[in-house]
């Protein structure tokens, strides 16, 4: 049975484009271009994967992720955006999205990302990897859980390779580890991103670090 995908984007043209690209391989169960319709229909259809735009009126992608998480926690979200704004993207991930890709992604890569999200993996685009490295950079006095507040050396290595444009498979080969291990590292980073109390995560993006 093919993966059930739901699309949320306030740009109808983009919606139509993505639908055309994905409909061959996946079953597109529906789409919405506003937050309220999206939440209602996703609750009803219970799709496997939702592609959701970060920037939309009435609360944006975060509102959709949070609205659905209350009632239908099994639905997985992939954030999709043209946005360069790190704080918006990080906020989506912290709200529960399992990945972020830019809208300039190649159709084949997007399909691959959907399959990964459905399998429970995290999907990091080079840009998200950069955002995360930036967010966790610098020594930081950790108050309660130091393990959550820092990335391990290995996790940083993985993120750097992703930021340099390598696919998971290439990352695995370069680090001499299995793809599964790469996925484990990425999932662990995702977990840290969602759970850490690093209070500067919300604010870091407003100030650029100049070394």
């Amino acid at each position, binding site marked *: 049975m093919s993966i059930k995908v739901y699309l949320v984007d306030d740009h109808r043209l983009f919606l139509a484009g993505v639908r055309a690209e994905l409909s061959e391989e996946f079953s597109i169960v529906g789409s919405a271009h506003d937050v309220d319709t999206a939440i209602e229909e996703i609750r009803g259809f219970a799709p496997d994967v939702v592609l959701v735009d970060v920037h939309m009126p009435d609360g944006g992608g975060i509102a959709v992720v949070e609205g659905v998480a209350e009632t239908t926690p099994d639905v997985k979200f992939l954030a999709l955006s*043209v946005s360069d704004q790190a704080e918006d993207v990080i906020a989506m991930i912290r709200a529960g999205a399992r990945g972020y890709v830019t809208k300039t992604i190649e159709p084949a890569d997007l399909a691959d990302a959907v399959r990964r999200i459905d399998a429970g993996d995290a999907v990091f685009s*080079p840009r998200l*990897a950069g955002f995360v*490295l930036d967010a966790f950079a610098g020594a930081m006095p950790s108050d309660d859980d130091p393990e959550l507040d820092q990335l391990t050396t290995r996790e940083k290595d993985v993120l750097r390779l992703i*930021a340099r*444009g*390598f696919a998971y498979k290439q990352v695995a080969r370069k680090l001499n580890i299995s793809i599964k291990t790469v996925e484990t590292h990425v999932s662990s980073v995702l977990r840290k991103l969602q759970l850490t109390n690093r209070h500067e995560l919300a604010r870091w993006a407003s100030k650029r*670090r*100049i*070394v």
Partner: protein
Amino acid sequence: MAGVAGGLADALGVSDGFVRAAFVTLSTVWGLGVLIYFGMWLMELDRVEDVEPEPAAPHQALGLGVAFAGLLLLLGAFGWWPSSALVLTVGALAFGTAALTDRNMPGPLAALVDPTVERPGRLRMLVGIGLLIGGLAVFAANVGPIYEIGPVLLAVALTGIGILVAFGPWVTRLARDLSTERRERIRQEERAEMAAHLHDSVLQTLALIQRSDDPARMSILARHQESELRDWLYGNAPLDGVDLLSTALREAARRIEADHQVPIEVVVVGDHPLNETTRALLGAASEAMVNAAKHSAAGRVSLYFEAENGELVVYVTDQGKGFEPGDVADDRRGIRESIKARVERAGGAAAIESEPGEGTEVVLRMPVSAG
């Protein structure tokens, strides 16, 4: 204050300026005005909002005025006030001011300030000014001797007060007009600047896209324009007058992307000011990008820049055809050497890794003093 005066004015059909003046005048009689005001406020007499204020006919207004004057005279006849001079002075000043500045029925001041306001009746103006001058005169005659203020000083003070009352509103209004005008001008300048920018960038690109029938080229143009517009909107521009390496790298990537029709994805972690040393890094990175765009045949090129632990690192990566490092055509060797030489002269290091079929990665490192 609590809307009592306004409510009463609506109910009586006279303008609230006069009602306020009446309250002020009565207040000089042992604070009677204040007492009545609060009494009415407690009884919520101000809640007459639904009544459509209907201007009283002139004779009605006159009747109210006469009745008020009678009340004052009655109080005076029984000797129930502290000082006739005080009551008369305040009364004359309050009503004079009300006559001149009233909002509902524009007085001469309103006409001075705003030419669209129709000129007030001459009688009103004369009465208002007369009341003001009379009030001031009574005040001067009575208060001057008591406090032994020099007549000149008093005259100066009174003139000042008179000018303040007469022209205060006009001056504040003028100042407000000036600042509004300035804001408006700034807004127009901003709009003109935005229009000029959009014309040079977005409109040009849209025109190019319309005339192009090559999807790859269209996509590059759109991409280029998108990132340029985004920088302009969200201000990835120089910070506090300091040019940043990240900005320069993005610009270089955008230019090369447009020139060579290959998308370049730029990811930046941390930042560093652009100076002599980092300019060498920028130049080498640009050459590496051009190289990848021209020769790799890759669908896209990645640039990753990180500033961490006192070191700047730039990776220019492609997933293209790669090459055998020992087996390089002369022209490309030249480029490679120039990339290396550039970075090394500035105190950094460059490494180029490639394998046929496995793409190419150029790594540039540059130590910087932290801080």
